[in-house]
Every structure is written in C-alpha cells, then in structure tokens.
C-alpha cells in the first residue's frame, strides 16, 4: 500500500513539475520571473513529502508486541528440554527399558508441574497438541458422550474460533448450540446464562481471558452456577493460565484447556484438565494406543511435555513478579498513547481484564494502514488466526463496537520479556503515525470542523 502511495505521489509530483515547466515556457516572453513557480513547486513538494514514509527505512528486526499470538520460549524452558531433544530420546510409553523409564519420569514431572499451577491432581491432566485440540476434545467429547440424553451446549459469541467451530460441527450433528451474546464490556451476563441453561444442557464453554480484548470472565461465578445446575463447565484458559491465578477446585471448573506456547513454553503442546471427582466422561476424538487415560491416544512428545511443565512451574513461581511488570508496562503504554492522542477507545472492560492484552481503537484511522506504517513493531489487529482477512474482528462486533472503530483496532500484547524501551518506542511510533494518518484523512478534517460523521448520509454511486 505504501508502494502505491509512493507511486501515486511521484506521479502527482511529476505532472506538477511538467505543468510548471509548461507555464514557465509560455510566460517566458512576459515579464513574470520564473523563480515564483519554482518556489510554489517546492512548497507543493514539501507538503506532499510530509506524509511520505517511504524513506523511513529502519534497520533491524521488528519489536515483538504480540504476546497473545505466541510468546518466545523462556531460556529456562529450553534448558529443561534440551536433554530430551538430544540424548534422552526414549518413548515415555516404553515400559521395558530404561530409555522409556527416564522419559516417562520426566513426562510425569511435567504433568505434576501443570497440575500444581492450576490446583489439580496430576492424574487429571492430559497432554494434547495445543489448546485447539484441548478445546475440540472437551467440547465435542463431552457433548457426544452425553448426547443421547442431553443435546444442548452453551457458549459465547466471543469464544476462540476453535470452540465456535467445534460447536458448529456439533450443530451439524443435530445438537442445539446457544451462542450467548456478551455485554458491551465483553463480559457474559450471568442472569442470561442461568436462563439459558435447560435440563437438556450438557456443557457450558466460556473462556477465562479473551484473546483479543483481554477481558476476564467471572469464571468462579459461572462455575458455581454450572455446579448448582449440574452442567459441566469447560473453560478455554489458554490466555489465562500462568498469568492470572486459576484454581480448578475453587472455581468449580470441570474441563480446562491450556496452551504451551502462550506461557513461554514450546509450541505444539497443550494440556486438558478433565475432572475426576465428580467424574467428567468424554468420547475421545482420536483412536489409538489408549495413552492419556484413553482420551488422547498417540505418543506423548516427551521434550514438549517437559517444556510445558517447566513453563508452568516458572509461571507459578513468577506470576506476581510478571504481573507487576506487565501491569506497569501496560499502564505506561496506555497513558503515553491516550495523553498524546484524542479519540482513542479501549475495547473491553477496563477493570476486569488481563493488562497484558491492550486492545485500542484509534478513531478515524484505518487499522491496517497503521499496522503497515508500524512495520518495525510486530502487532496485530486481532487474533492471529484471522489476521489474514480484512474483516473486522467478530469479537469486537460482539461487544457492539461500531464498524469503523472495529476496523481501526490494534492489539498490544505485553509479556514477561517486553522492555520499557520497547513500550516507549511503540507508543511514540504509534502516536506519530496516527497523527500522520489522521492529517491525511478527510474524515479527521471534518471532525476537526465539528461535523458529526455519524449524521452524514453517504450516497452510493
């Protein structure tokens, strides 16, 4: 887009100089001196060049501010994994030799570390390939197992795509699915949830922390409600585990999805918590050797299991330390941006939120152009899964964000390894480019003149 802009500009400039030259030639016979035109042309050029960022070339890799998409692996996690990526290569399910025993021991340690983080029993943890698989197993597995008697599942409109898609698949199989709307702050209405639960309902699936707007759902209250109504409660806690305190017993959670690479662990591994007392039963999706209590067949990847375990252990030890740091950086970023720029809207509840996920809408600026301009900062307008499409985020639409604001949103993801320098650089760049893009925008000009954009009737030609 920048290229096109640059090209357009050069065309404009070229035609203008030609024009000037032409005029000069014509009037050369008269007494008007030529320098006057040269000056206007220079002025014109200066005005045009002001918006041009073609020469703003930066050396080096972009900064990483997309901690919701994935996080870098902590060196301490890599250190724990290395032996299992090199010499200790045994299959953890081999019971006949030492190679199997040593890896099995390490896998069980990883399981214990995850269990400790969420206050569960190690036997209740199942290793999967990631939170997507965990969500699939939980939603489809529970619904199908209890499907003969109960054919109703409840979820929300702001869930991750993998939960929504699993529910869509269930709908095709003849299940009834309720997609609960959320309030304007992104939080589900408990009364509405209670009213939606019927004797037919087998499962309620609501995420703990939203991946796009960072809103925390009242998981404890939902858990209580579900327990009282004897409905299983699944929560997608990929963005929450290790960042906010989660306790499956205190919160009455029956199933919980965990992802490795969102907690500074390795990619390609996740975990599913499945409660044993009262027992939650589910139909496995994958058939095979019956590993992981028969719920997820397939060899457990020992290095990855060790890695997610080490990451969970670190997250447990450093939760307070990380929280303080992330809160500090998040406030700094928000304050710096909002004190410099008017018309910046924070999406989602400002209180019930995980501060490491900051979703801001810059009114009168198109989000994609801003992302393009901020090419030396790795940012996203929403979830990574949908970042290829130009559609506005369905999460923002679900919380009632206007179409234009939904198009202008950017998500800042702050994590353990983000530095003050990075935050300041991002904020300054952001301010600079929002101002630049707004100055180019006719809408912004109209707003400055006091015209309410919403009252304009745009005619279509």
């Amino acid at each position, binding site marked *: 887009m920048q290229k096109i802009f640059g090209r357009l500009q050069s065309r404009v400039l070229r035609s203008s100089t030609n024009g000037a030259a032409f005029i000069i030639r014509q009037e050369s016979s008269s007494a008007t001196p030529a320098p006057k035109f040269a000056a206007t042309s220079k002025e014109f050029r200066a005005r045009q060049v002001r918006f041009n960022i073609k020469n703003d070339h930066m050396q080096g890799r972009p900064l990483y501010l997309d901690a919701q998409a994935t996080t870098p692996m902590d060196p301490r996690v890599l250190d724990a994994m290395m032996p299992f990526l090199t010499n200790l290569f045994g299959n953890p399910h081999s019971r006949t030799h030492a190679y199997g025993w040593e890896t099995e021991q390490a896998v069980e340690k990883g399981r214990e570390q995850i269990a400790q983080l969420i206050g569960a029993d190690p036997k209740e943890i199942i290793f999967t390939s990631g939170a997507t698989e965990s969500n699939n197993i939980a939603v489809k597995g529970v619904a199908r197992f209890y499907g003969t008697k109960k054919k109703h599942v409840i979820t929300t409109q702001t869930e991750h795509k993998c939960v929504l898609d699993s529910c869509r698949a269930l709908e095709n199989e003849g299940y009834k699915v309720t997609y609960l709307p959320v309030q304007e702050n992104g939080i589900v209405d408990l009364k509405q949830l209670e009213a939606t639960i019927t004797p037919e309902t087998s499962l309620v699936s609501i995420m703990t922390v939203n991946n796009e707007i960072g809103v925390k759902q009242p998981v404890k209250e939902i858990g209580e409600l579900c327990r009282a109504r004897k409905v299983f409660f699944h929560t997608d806690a990929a963005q929450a585990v290790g960042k906010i305190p989660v306790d499956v017993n205190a919160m009455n959670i029956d199933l919980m999805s965990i992802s490795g690479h969102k907690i500074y662990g390795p990619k390609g591994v996740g975990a599913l918590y499945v409660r044993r007392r009262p027992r939650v039963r589910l139909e496995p999706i994958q058939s095979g050797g019956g590993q992981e209590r028969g719920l997820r067949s397939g060899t457990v990847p020992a290095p990855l299991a060790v890695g997610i375990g080490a990451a969970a252990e670190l997250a447990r030890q450093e939760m307070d330390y990380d929280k303080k740091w992330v809160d500090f950086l998040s406030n700094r970023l928000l304050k710096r941006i909002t004190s410099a720029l008017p018309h910046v809207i924070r999406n989602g509840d400002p209180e019930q939120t995980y501060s490491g996920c900051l979703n801001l809408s810059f009114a009168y600026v198109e989000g994609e152009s801003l992302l393009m301009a901020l090419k030396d900062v790795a940012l996203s307008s929403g979830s990574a899964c949908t970042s290829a499409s130009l559609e506005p985020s369905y999460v923002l639409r679900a919380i009632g964000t206007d179409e234009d604001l939904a198009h202008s949103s950017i998500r800042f993801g702050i994590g353990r390894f983000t*530095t003050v320098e990075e935050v300041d650089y991002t904020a300054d760049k952001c301010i600079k480019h929002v101002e630049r893009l707004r100055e180019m925008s006719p809408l912004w000009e109209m707003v400055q003149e006091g015209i309410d954009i919403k009252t304009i009737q745009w005619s279509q030609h």
Partner: protein
Amino acid sequence: MSTRRQAITLYRNLLREAEKLPSYNFRMYAARKIRDTFRANRTINDFEEIDRQVANAKQNLDLIRRQVIIGHLYTADKLVIEHKKTLRPDC
C-alpha cells in the same frame, strides 16, 4: 568465604554472564530478574534459606552460561531499537 562475599561474587558473575546473552529481550529480562531477586532476598537471615538461594543462583549461572552458547549458535538480527542508537535520532 563468608556468605556475604559469596553472594556478591555470585551476583556479579550472574550479571556479567547475563550481559552476554545475544537476544535483547532475554538479556534485559535476565538483568532485571537477577537484580530484583538479589534485592528481594537481601534481608534473609535464615541460613538454610540462604544456602538454598545460593544453590539456586549457582544453577541459574550454569543455565545462563549454556544459554549464552546456544544463543550464539543461532543468532538473529538485532532489533530496531538496538540499531536505533546509531541511526538518526528523529525516527
């Protein structure tokens, strides 16, 4: 060696070693973490606890040494802000 001297030596070695981490983010985090942990543990009087923390620090020192080696084996370009200081200050 007194525990105080031992702790100070460890602290210096850790910081010196962390400085060698090639990744900007890991380097900054390590320095911050080492400084904050030593500062928070300064008031510990219990000898057993001190021994535990010292052993922990020694383990972490070895860990950082290994990670420095790995980091140097697979380096990536420097980040924008690492380059920035040598470039024009206005952008």
